[in-house]
Structures are given as structure tokens and as C-alpha cells.
């Protein structure tokens, strides 16, 4: 089944209560943050806490990530070395600016897979692109390693690197967002949009999530559980979309069974991109448990 990454909920790794509660809100992914949310003097204790939490907490169906510290800091490599034996499989690498950043983490993970006798390639990377340089290099970053399951865009650091500020309308991010999502889709991996920090602005959030979906993102990083429902609503196909998609796929199966190359729905011919889109709708629906038994409608 397609792993949905509609929501990636940031949880600071120094708050045991929040770490324990996070799965209850059923985000698709939880990202335990060891980077920005943790002060320098708390880095070691937060890492220790996360190692224990990974062993103790039932995360249900949530895919678990850690946002490690960049590898050029004294903390990044330690984060990875402690978290791999604790069972963590997914690493979000902040401030990715070049394919070399990804390769460095890739090599570390390869070594640790060997050391801990883990299946080769099991450990995955999500590259976080957060600077002008990173955006420019997005296509190369997105293809830097088979471990990459996606790249994400981070607007806060990006606007800083661009010497501008985030606006409500987001013109300053438009090209960067488009470039990141284009690079991800070209590489066949997920693209995750940046966080929205104005928690009280529900309309603005709705607008931004809709735009992210329209641009082709797979999902959005979220900083508060209250944002999850909106993102899931917008990124999950509606019932009529699912029904229509199922009819297209049924028609495709019927055409295959008849040995016919022509797929017809409601008397109209359907071509291959439409079938692929329909399959994606069904994948999303399956991932969101909207199909009975998680299987065919």
C-alpha cells in the first residue's frame, strides 16, 4: 500500500507528554525534532529521551522520523549513531544544500546498516531544502541517493537566505516551491511543503494547503495537531472522485480482459494519463483507509 505522507507532525523531542500523545492525532508521519526545537544544552538529553521513546511508545500506523541535527554540527552524527540501534528508520536531514550532504548521510547509514546487521537500504532519508542554494540544487539532491523517499521545503530558513520575509500570499516562495516539487516528482519521490505558523488563521491555512496540493506536493509539515484534519481533508480524495477513479480502473481491467487496447468510460475513450491519475486517487484512498478492507472498492 502506498505510504501516505499527507502530514508530518513536528514534535519536540524534549517533551515526553507530547511525544507520547502524538500518535493519537493520527498524522501520517511524526517527526521528532532534535534540531531547532532543542537548545544546545539539551541536545544530549533530548536524544536520550527519543531513544527510549522509540522503544516504549506504540506509534500505530504513523511513520516515524527524526529531524536530526545537520551533520556539520557536533550533534548530527551522534544523533544517527544512537537512533539507528534504537530502531529508527527514517531521517530528516535539515539544511540540505547539495547532493553531497545527502551522500554523507547515506554513507553513514550504510556503515550503520552493516554494523547493526540491518537489511541494506532499509534506512531512509528525507532531505529538507531550506536555502536558496538548496532550492537551486533540488534536482540533484532529489536523485542523490536511492534512500531518498522525499524532499521537503522549509520556508522559514529559505526566506532568511533570500533576505526577505514570509508574506500571507507567498509570492516569495512560489518559484522555490514549484522547483522543489518539480524536482521531487521528476525523481519519483515525495515532496513535502513547508510549515504554516499562523495557528489562528484557519482560512489562510486552508488556502495554503490547497495551493500545496494543487502544485503537486504529497503533503505538508505541520506544527500543531489541530492542523492535521485540514491537511487530510484537502489531500484525501472526495467520495465522488474515488468512485469515478474506480470506474476508470474497472474499465481498464475490462479492456485488458477483452484484449482491447481501448478503455471506455461513459461512452468516452480514456487515455493513459487519466488511468494513471485514477490509480493515484485510489492509492490515496487506500492509504487513507477509505476503501473497504483497504482493498478494492
Amino acid at each position, binding site marked *: 500500500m502506498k505510504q501516505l505522507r499527507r502530514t508530518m507532525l513536528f514534535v519536540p523531542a524534549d517533551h515526553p507528554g507530547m511525544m507520547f500523545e502524538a500518535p*493519537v*492525532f493520527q498524522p501520517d508521519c511524526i517527526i521528532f525534532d532534535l534540531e531547532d526545537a532543542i537548545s544546545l544544552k539539551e541536545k544530549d538529553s533530548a536524544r536520550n529521551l527519543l531513544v527510549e521513546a522509540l522503544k516504549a511508545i506504540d506509534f500505530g500506523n504513523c511513520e516515524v522520523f527524526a529531524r536530526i541535527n545537520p551533520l556539520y554540527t557536533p550533534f548530527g552524527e551522534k544523533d544517527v549513531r544512537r537512533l539507528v540501534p534504537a530502531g529508527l528508520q527514517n531521517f530528516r536531514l535539515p539544511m540540505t544544500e547539495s547532493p553531497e550532504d545527502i551522500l554523507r548521510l547515506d554513507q553513514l547509514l550504510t556503515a550503520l546498516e552493516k554494523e547493526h546487521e540491518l537489511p541494506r537500504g532499509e534506512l531512509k532519508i528525507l532531505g529538507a531544502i531550506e536555502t536558496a542554494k538548496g532550492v537551486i540544487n533540488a534536482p540533484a539532491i532529489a536523485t542523490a541517493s536511492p534512500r531518498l523517499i522525499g524532499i521537503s521545503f522549509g520556508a522559514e530558513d529559505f526566506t532568511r537566505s533570500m533576505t526577505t520575509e514570509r508574506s500571507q500570499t507567498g509570492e516569495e516562495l512560489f518559484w522555490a516551491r514549484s522547483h522543489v516539487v518539480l524536482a521531487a516528482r521528476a525523481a519519483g519521490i515525495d515532496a513535502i511543503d513547508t510549515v504554516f505558523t499562523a495557528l489562528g488563521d484557519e482560512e489562510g491555512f486552508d488556502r495554503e494547503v490547497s495551493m500545496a496540493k494543487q502544485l503537486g506536493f504529497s503533503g505538508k509539515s505541520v506544527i*500543531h495537531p489541530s492542523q492535521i484534519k485540514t491537511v487530510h481533508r484537502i489531500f484525501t480524495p472526495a467520495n465522488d472522485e474515488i468512485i469515478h477513479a474506480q470506474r476508470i480502473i474497472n474499465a481498464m481491467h475490462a479492456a485488458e480482459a477483452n484484449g482491447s487496447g481501448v478503455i471506455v468510460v461513459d461512452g468516452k475513450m480514456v487515455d493513459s494519463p487519466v488511468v494513471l491519475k485514477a490509480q493515484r486517487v485510489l492509492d490515496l484512498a487506500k492509504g487513507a483507509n477509505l476503501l473497504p478492507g483497504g482493498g478494492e472498492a
Partner: protein
Amino acid sequence: MTKMVLNAVGRAIPTHIKGMGDLTPFKGAFAHTPGPMNMTPRAAWHKPGQSKMTETIRQALENCGLADGMTLSFHHHFRNGDHLVNMVMDEVAAMGVRDITIAPSSLQSIHEKLIPHIRSGVITGIQTSGIRGEIARVLSTENLLKTPIIIRSHGGRPRAIESGDTKIDIAIIGAPAADAFGNVNGVEGPNACGSLGYAIADATCATHTVVVTDYLIPYPACPVSIPQTLVDYVVVAEGIGDPQGIVSGATRITRNPMELLIAEKANEAILASGLVQQDFSFQAGTGGSSLAVAHFLRQHMRENNIKGSFASGGINGYLVDMLEEGLFRTLMDVQCFDLKAIESIRKNPNHMEMSASYYANPHNKGCVAHQLDVMVLSATEIDVQFNVNVITGSNGIIMGASGGHCDTAAGSKLAIVVAPLFRGRLPIVVDQVTTVVTPGESIDVLVTEYGVAVNPARTDLKDRFRENGLKTVEIHELKERAEKVTGKPTKPVVTDEVIGLVEYRDGTIIDTIKKVVE
């Protein structure tokens, strides 16, 4: 040694308490038939021109014939801004009177100033809905009173007063506004608190009723919550209340994501019950998840053009908004929680004041609680039998209030408890609650962040939930899930001394509170 018997929820209850008499163990929510009412309104007379104005609280108490052994009642609409209980009891102590039973509708942490009067024997009995703060800790850990505290629900208290179980010698009415002839309302003056619902039984049934106000208004007060016909004396005294502690500006919906999640799940359960239809009725507490349920319900009512008949209980600004939006036809209000509710009860005839007896007394000819469709309740603990504790912490110390919990649970068609599975390191779903306030037979559904559990006795509800696609879990699963994280909770260490009796709304005893060893 007093003989103990097991009541219908399996709690050992003394059959007799020295100084109180025989006790009736709880038999079931509607199993106890009341005896004949023995309260008779006292005869009174008044001559034209006779003034009720009295210079001081002391003089009023003297006029009422205050003596050792009497019962003085108070109401808690001033909440934690109430100075009156403390002022009156200071005066009682100064007069050298002892052995007083106080019957406030609730005690707050501000009443810790009563502790010296309890230690010195001025106060020897307490009958109340709840106790909070230091005074609760002292009463829970030291056996200071001559007879155990009686914890009564908001319906059980007027039942006790109107039936004569509690004979009030002097009712003290803290009046936000009053005229010189004793007409009282709660909507004017610096201490405006809105409804005076809890004080009405007191004023009606007490031998003497004293009104104390810091806001004397010209005769006649209008509107009138407590009429002149019930009032003996009027005292003007400064400093009876602190507006800061009485009401908040406006009650807001929680932003706590866990409380919102639980509320959303509760709303799904309420909708799946099929009870939300035209003219349905609703009540919810003001705390966290409870009020947030109203928020989710509101969206559904708007989208489906549903208008409810009434919302009741303690009323806050959020429910006022729903009234003004036309989502409820009426509000029935025993206690206003915020300024918006006070303003509304003052100006909107569809926002009605109700007495606590009208609200929840099971032994009158019909109370509002028995007309409720949906009741959303909180819980300090809930056990696998669905019994609920809202009075003691898991450490055994009194920290809450019975309130209208058991009244509305018994009366409503759907009594739904919303609670997180954990508070801090403590599990909320347990094998046995520390103290039973509401029997499991009255609770239909428990909603936690980890799932919805239906009382097995409500097979009809379980079927309806299934038909409507609402997944449920067994309450045992929730308990086990909690215990997997917290371990089995330890029971409080208590002695055999009974420091409190939890009275069910019908006057029977549902549980005892034992002295805690700290």
C-alpha cells in the same frame, strides 16, 4: 463498631452515624422511594412600616437567634470571589457561638480561612457539593468534624432542604443587588453573578433568611430572583465579593488539541446516537472537552438547520452565542459562568433562571435534568463498571464537587463522559474509582482519545453506533491500555475513619470518604 452494609455499587456503608442517625444505602438510581415531605414553610408576619434593614451581620445573626448547634446555609455563586462565608463565620466565632453546621452549596479554596473555625469547634458539620484547596486537604487528612461531611449533588441539596433532611436555621444570601425590603437579583452591582439558582431553596425553607449586599438599590428591585416574601433581614456590608474571582470575561473553547480531539469524538458519538434532532436538549460542563463538544455540535446544527429546545445547567457565553444564533430556543440557568451569560440572563427573556430544585431535584414533581436528551460530563476517574468519581483525587483527598453529575447522568437519555485516558502519570480508567459519585448504571458512554466505550447495559446504543459506523472499544481495553503505560495505580492509604458521606441525589448513601494518611 458501626455495622457496615454493601450498597448497590458494592461500597461498604455504615448503617448509623452517631449524631446523624440511620443511613440508607444506595439501592439504584430510581430504587429509593422518598418518604413524606416534612418541611413546612414557617409562619411569618410583617407589619406595615417594619424595617428589615440591619446595621451589621452580627445584629442580623442575633435577630435570628443564632445559637450553638444551628445550621447556616450559603450559596456559591460568588465562587472563588466569595468573602461572605468567611465574614459570617468570623462573626459567629466572635459571638462565641459553637457547634455550627454550615451548608454552603459549594466551598472553594478561598474558604481555607474557615480552617481555624473548624479546629476551634465553631464549625462542626459541613454539607456541601464540593470542597477545593487547602480546606479540602485538611478535612480529608484530619478527622476534625463531629459528624462526617455530607457531599450532595446540586439536585440532592434542594431535595434535602425541601424534604427537611437539612433544616436550615439561617440562610445567608449573598446578594449582588437588593432593595431594603429584601428583593434580590444577581444581575446588578459590582458582584453581579447572574442566576441565583442555588440560593432559592435556602431562602424558601430556612427559618430565617438574611440578605447581605454591598449594592442597595431603590425599592422595588427589578428583576427579582429571591423575593421579599422570604427575607427577614437585609444587611449592607462592604467587601462581600471579589468580582475577579466571581466571573471570567468570556468562556472560550479550549485550544488544547487533546481536549479538542476527545470533544470531536464525543460529538461523533452523540450524532451516532440519533438524538440530535429538532427540539433536542443538551447540557455540557464548562471544562475543556465538555464545552468543546458544544462547538462541534454547533457546526452540525448549523449545517443541518437543527434547532434545540434548551441547553441547561451552568451557562456560559458560548451557549449564549448559540441561543442568540437561534440554535437553542431557551437557556435554563442555575449558575452563570461569565459576563456574557450574566448580560444575557439580564436582558433575554429566553434565558431563564432556574432554581437548583427545578434543575435537578428528583423528589419534586419533575426537574429539568429529567428532560435532557444529551448530557456531556467529565470524570476524575471512571471504572470498568462505569462508576464515576468527581469528588476525590486518586490520592483520596477531596478536590472537586459532585455538582449536577449524578442528577444529569440519571435524567438524560444519553450521558456521555469525556475524559483523557491519562492525566499526568495517572490513568483515568481504573478497576475501581476511589469514590463513587455517579453510579455506572447512569453512564452510557465513555469517550477518550483512544476510543469510545459503551456501557454493556446499553445494547440498544451499541447497535445504533454499529449501524451508524461508529467504532467502539470495550472499557476493559481502555483500562488495560492505560495500565500498560502507568502500571496499576496504587490505592490511597486511608484509615477506617469516615470523614465524608457521598449522598446520592435521592438521599441514600452511595459512598464514604475515609481519612487519608498523607
